Structure formats: C-alpha cells, structure tokens
C-alpha cells in the first residue's frame, strides 16, 4: 500500500467513526430487555402488652409483686434475640432526722433494696440499672429466632422489697428505715434484634 492509499483509509475510518457517533438517529438493529427487580424491606416490630408493668406505692419490706408481660412479634421479620436493660428515674432521698445518719442514702442503695427475678436471673434493681450489660432474655441461640412473626412470649417479672434485719449500732432501729417514703421509676427497655443477613433466593412465585 502506498502512502496515498493509507491516507485514504485513514480518512475513511475517520468518517466511519464520525458516523458511528451519530448512530442514535441512524440505522439499526438493536434489542432492549428489561429486568424487573423487587426489593421490599421487612418490618421488625416488638410489641409489649403494657407500657406500665406496675406502679406501686406504700410498700413495706418483705412485700413482693409478680407481673406478667407479654412480648409479641408484630412485624414481618423474625426476631433473633430480645435484650433487656433498665434505667431509673424519679428517685429522691428522703431524710429521717431520728436516725443517726439522718437517713441519708444514695439512689444505688435504695435500688439495691429491690430484688428482681426475671427468667433465671436474680439481680437487684440497682444491678439492672447500673451494672448491667444488655441482658439477653431469650436463649434460642443465633441460628434460631426468639420470636417468629405473630408469636408471643410471656415474661414473668417478680420484684421483692428485700427485708433486711440489720440494725443501726446500739439501736433497735433497722437500717432500712432510711428508705421510708422513697420511690423510683424503672424503665425496662426491651430491644429486639434482626436475624443475621443471609443469602436470599427469590420469593416463591
């Protein structure tokens, strides 16, 4: 091929290239396919049977109350585990001048007077509120859901005002007298978690 011919091809190629750029309006065999995809997120919804488990006053040492709370999976996703934690509020120290220490005590001391029994666990309200990692209250393990959609579980919670017969030194007065008239509200926080992510195949047709 001589130089001229080469150049001609070059120009031709250029022209071709140019015409390809304009291809949209120009000729054409083509084919279009659509793939319809559907991604729908599920719902994870834990429902408790009540907002207030109990709210009791005028307790004396030794008194105890047992209430049942129903936890229901109201969503479309399986619940893997349910975790419990607690927060306390509303406590105020009530002083009693006839006691040698004026009945001074801390919130932690007050909450320690109450024992909570939930499932196998026996702890004080203070531990529940302060020294407590999120506690798993379901034992199915990670492979099995704790609650499948529509399923419920009953959780029995027993709270006892523990009786302690320790007395002040050289006195007939019980140390627990310092807690007279005191109160607190405990918020039990239940967290439901999802199952681990997994490889999914399509919904059955």
């Amino acid at each position, binding site marked *: 091929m001589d130089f001229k011919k080469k150049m001609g091809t070059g120009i031709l190629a250029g022209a071709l290239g140019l015409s390809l750029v304009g291809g949209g309006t120009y000729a054409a065999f083509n084919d279009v396919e659509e793939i319809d995809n559907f991604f729908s*997120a*599920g719902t*994870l*919804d*834990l*429902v*408790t049977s*009540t*907002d*207030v*488990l*109990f*709210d*009791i*006053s*005028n*307790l*004396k*040492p*030794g*008194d*105890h*109350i*047992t209430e049942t*709370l129903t*936890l229901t999976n109201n*969503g479309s*996703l399986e619940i893997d585990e349910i975790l419990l934690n607690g927060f306390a509020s*509303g406590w105020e120290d009530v002083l009693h001048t006839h006691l040698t220490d004026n009945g001074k005590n801390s919130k932690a001391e007050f909450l320690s*007077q*109450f024992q909570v029994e939930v499932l196998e666990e026996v702890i004080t*309200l203070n531990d529940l509120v302060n020294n407590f990692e999120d506690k798993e209250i379901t034992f199915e393990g990670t492979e099995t859901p704790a609650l499948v959609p529509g399923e419920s579980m009953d959780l029995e*919670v027993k*709270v*006892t*005002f523990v*009786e302690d017969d320790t007395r002040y030194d050289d006195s*007939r007065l019980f140390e627990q*007298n310092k*807690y*007279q*008239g*005191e*109160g*607190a*509200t*405990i*918020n*039990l*926080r*239940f*967290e*439901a*978690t*999802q199952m*681990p*992510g997994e490889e999914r195949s399509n919904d059955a047709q």
Partner: protein
Amino acid sequence: MTFKKKLTAGAMAATLGFSLVGVGTWAAFNDIEEVSAGVAAGELDLVINPAEGPINFDISNLKPGDKMTRSFELDNNGTLAIKEVLLSIDQVDFNDYIPEEGQAGFGDEDTYGSNDAEEYLDQFQVTLLRTGTEGAVEDIIVGTEQKVTLKDIYLGSDKVQKAVGNHWVDGRINLASTASNQWEGLPAQPHDFDTVEMTIEFVEYSDRDDRGVEDQNKYQGDTADITFSLEATQWDGQEITEADLNENGYITINEEANNGEN
C-alpha cells in the same frame, strides 16, 4: 500484574474498606420498647402523745409504798399499719447512793447500804399495765400477784412472759391491742390509737436484820434513769396483687391490720 488487574484489586479493597466502616450500623433493623415499673416505700411512724398529764415518770424523794400512774397514747402517723409496739428497758443509768461528808446518812451505813441496779429496779413493781381504747381495753398486767417489777421487764424474764400472756413478743411486751380483728395493732386505716396506762409502785415490805434495820434502807438515796424503748414493727411482707392496689397503685391493704386479712 497488569494495570487492569491492579485496578480491580484496588477497587475491591476500597469496597471492603467501605463496608468495614459501616459495620457498626450496618445490619440494623431493631425495635425498642419501654415498660416502666415504679416502686415506692411506705412509712412506718409511731407517735407517742400525752394522754393525761406527763407521759414519763420523773419523780424523786420516793419512799416505799409510793405509787404513780402515767398514761400515754400510741398513735400511728404513717401509711403502714403497725403490728406491735414492743416495750423494753434498754438502758438503766443507776447510781448507788453513798453519802459524802455533809450529806444525809453520812457515816451511818444503816441508811444507805450498797446494792446494784437490778436490786433497785426490783423495788418497783408494775401493778397495772393496760392498753386499748375506751370500750376495748385490755389488761396486760393487773394487781400485785404477778410480782412483775422493772427488773423483770429489764431482763425480759419468764415472770413477765407468764404475766402478760399473748402480749409477750420475743422478750418484750407488746403494748398495742391484740384483739384479732381489724383493730389489731395500730392500723393506719381505720385510724386507731391505743392509750397505755401504767402504774408503778415502790414496794413496801418489812424485813429486819438482828439489829432491827430494814432491808430496804439500802435503797435510800439511790437513783435510776430508766429509758423505755417502744419499737413499732411492721406486718410481714406479703404478695401484692392488683386487687390490693387502688387506682393510683397505692397498696391500701398495707394500711390495714394483718395485711388486710381480718
């Protein structure tokens, strides 16, 4: 490695890095529900009010045969029912009189002698101990037959137990009424109070030695500061159910005698 391959590896590393950054929040469907539980302690509060005249004995210059009566009212000022009010003598500050020069009886041992606190307390006999309200009075100790003295109360002796019957609780005397009904003890509801009446007599007996000196002479000039301790107790702890609560969650039956069971 060609450039293309390197690029792919780089892109993959970037993707991995990205997903690692997101780990904390990635999965992340959860739901949180809160349920509240409130607890509040009640109050156990015994008050002692004068009933007629002073509530305490504060008497000097006593002689054998002297008699004194005091009364006081036990009242419940708390929100919890009181089960018992337990009387004991926890503290006695005794002084055996030994006269110094210039004081009465100095040098005459017949008139003061020496004795201990328990002997002195034994000279004071409780001849009446009564509790309750008008119309429902319970006699805990009546008359001289039982021979219950302040020493017996101090020691919590069997003699007291025998004398006071069902008012005996763990070595102490229950001063609250014990009638087994809604008024047992001192309920906060229905509000109740008991009036306690106590008579103490400086016993008088004649017991002379060879020289004719009365045995009781040794108590002359002696003094004792005696503290009565009154402990109010709570009813036993109980199972609380919905039926025991009013609309505010207040445990009404803790105001009542015997945890509301009559």
